[in-house]
């Protein structure tokens, strides 16, 4: 791998890593929204 | 003055209780000698090579036998629930930490006092050098200072035998590195001035990890 290859991989690694982390956070938020919705149903029913 | 009386009382109680059953001491010693023997097979040591890795072997034996004995440090307090009895005594919670640390220090020094001659025997290295002894003692103080509070932490968790090494070994790694480097210097017969930097690091570690746990320990044991 020549010089530029290293740089691209380095930047790539960080960018991809950040997007994965952001994706994980967004997934957590979606799961949380689902739970809140489910809770609302229980509240209405109880 | 009462503080130190209770510290002495706790340390003496630990020592007495352990000497009565000798369960920790015997198993830790056997374990430490085993580590030395395993290293002997692992490296089929050429004489000149030994000096290089001797400190490493020594400190791996100390580190893991240390973890083994620290794992047991708070068992009587936890299993027989005596911690609440200690907490009811008219003395600061820090005294429990210092007392237990002294007790563990006594055992670790005892283990080291046995391992060093065995090590000298197995690897025929002149071990009784003032440099090595001081480094070992200084490092053991730091070792026990961190290990005691982590042992108190670990004993309250589910998988306590696993939690202690995971928490303890990375945090104590600088002392192990510094001790290995300093021991190598003293084993090669170099003068004290060469290892002042390492002694300084170990000393700094000791001071930090005697004061910070002292301040934080009450939070570990209060309900």
């Amino acid at each position, binding site marked *: 791998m020549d010089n530029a290859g290293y740089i691209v991989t380095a930047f790539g690694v960080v960018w991809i890593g950040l997007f994965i982390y952001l994706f994980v956070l967004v997934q957590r938020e979606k799961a949380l929204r689902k739970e809140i919705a489910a809770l609302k149903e229980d509240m209405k029913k109880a | 003055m009462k503080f130190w009386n209770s510290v002495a009382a706790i340390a003496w109680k630990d020592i007495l209780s352990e000497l009565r059953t000798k369960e920790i001491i015997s198993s830790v010693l056997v374990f430490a000698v085993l580590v030395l023997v395993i290293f002997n097979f692992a490296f089929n040591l050429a004489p000149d090579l030994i000096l290089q890795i001797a400190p490493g072997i020594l400190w791996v034996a100390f580190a893991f036998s240390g973890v083994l004995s620290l794992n047991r440090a708070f068992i009587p307090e936890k299993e027989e629930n005596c911690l609440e009895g200690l907490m009811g005594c008219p003395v600061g919670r820090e005294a429990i930490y210092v007392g237990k640390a002294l007790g563990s220090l006594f055992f670790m020094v005892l283990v080291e006092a046995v391992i060093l001659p065995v090590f000298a025997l197995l690897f025929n290295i002149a071990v009784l050098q003032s440099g090595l002894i001081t480094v070992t003692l200084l490092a053991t103080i730091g070792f026990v200072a961190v290990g005691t509070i982590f042992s108190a932490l670990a004993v309250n968790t589910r998988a306590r035998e696993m939690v202690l090494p995971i928490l303890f070994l990375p945090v104590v790694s600088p002392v192990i590195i510094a001790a290995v480097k300093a021991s190598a210097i003293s084993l090669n017969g170099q003068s004290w001035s060469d290892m002042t930097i390492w002694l300084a690091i170990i000393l700094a570690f000791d001071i930090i990890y005697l004061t910070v746990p002292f301040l934080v320990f009450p939070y570990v044991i209060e*309900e």
Partner: protein
Amino acid sequence: MNSTQAISSAPLAVETSGVVKSFGNYIALRGIDLKVPAGSTLAVFGPNGAGKTTLIKILASIMRPTSGKILIEGLELKDNVELLRARLGLVAHQSYLYSNLSAWENLDFYARMYGLDDRSKRIGEVIDLVSMTGRKHDRLSTFSRGMQQRMALARALLHKPPILLLDEPETGLDQQALDAMWDIIKREEDGRRTIIFTSHSFERALAVCNDVVILERGRIAYKAQACTLNLDGLKQKYQECTAAVKK
């Protein structure tokens, strides 16, 4: 209110106001207000999980309350912890003694922790008091449940505490051992000692206490003087309080 003046004038050995204790979301005590005069004996009843043990541990300064004030002999427990611990004795479910050590060594350890000066004399006295003289050099692990409970009492009385806390002292004791224990507690200090104990046996408790309190889900549901109650009255009150729980 400086400390010396507080001790002499305060008739109350123990006073709590608004003591709350919560473990995360679970609330064990929801505001306890108690006034225990010096020298009196208070029995605390209540179903399991009502917060009896939590209350005892908080009074013994082993557990910190989430909020509320505790005055021991007029002094704020929070600010004089080490001074007041020397005036509190506790007998809990566990004996707080080390099974590897002998009875004498255990008491010697706690005598040092409480900073007693005439250690061996006091230890000898307390061991004779609980009539364990014959076994004083044997290891705790060889003791029966009853003997361990007596040793726990010996440990609690070691430093002559004016206030004694007992958490269900009758657990694991037969009738005869229980009578012996109460006799010991009452004989020492000829009644000047304040005793707070939790219990499940109404009959036994009524015989020894001056005041009665029924705890129910972290609150005081009923408070009365023992003399105004007979056994059936107490049982009936207990049903009423705990019945509320079942509804």
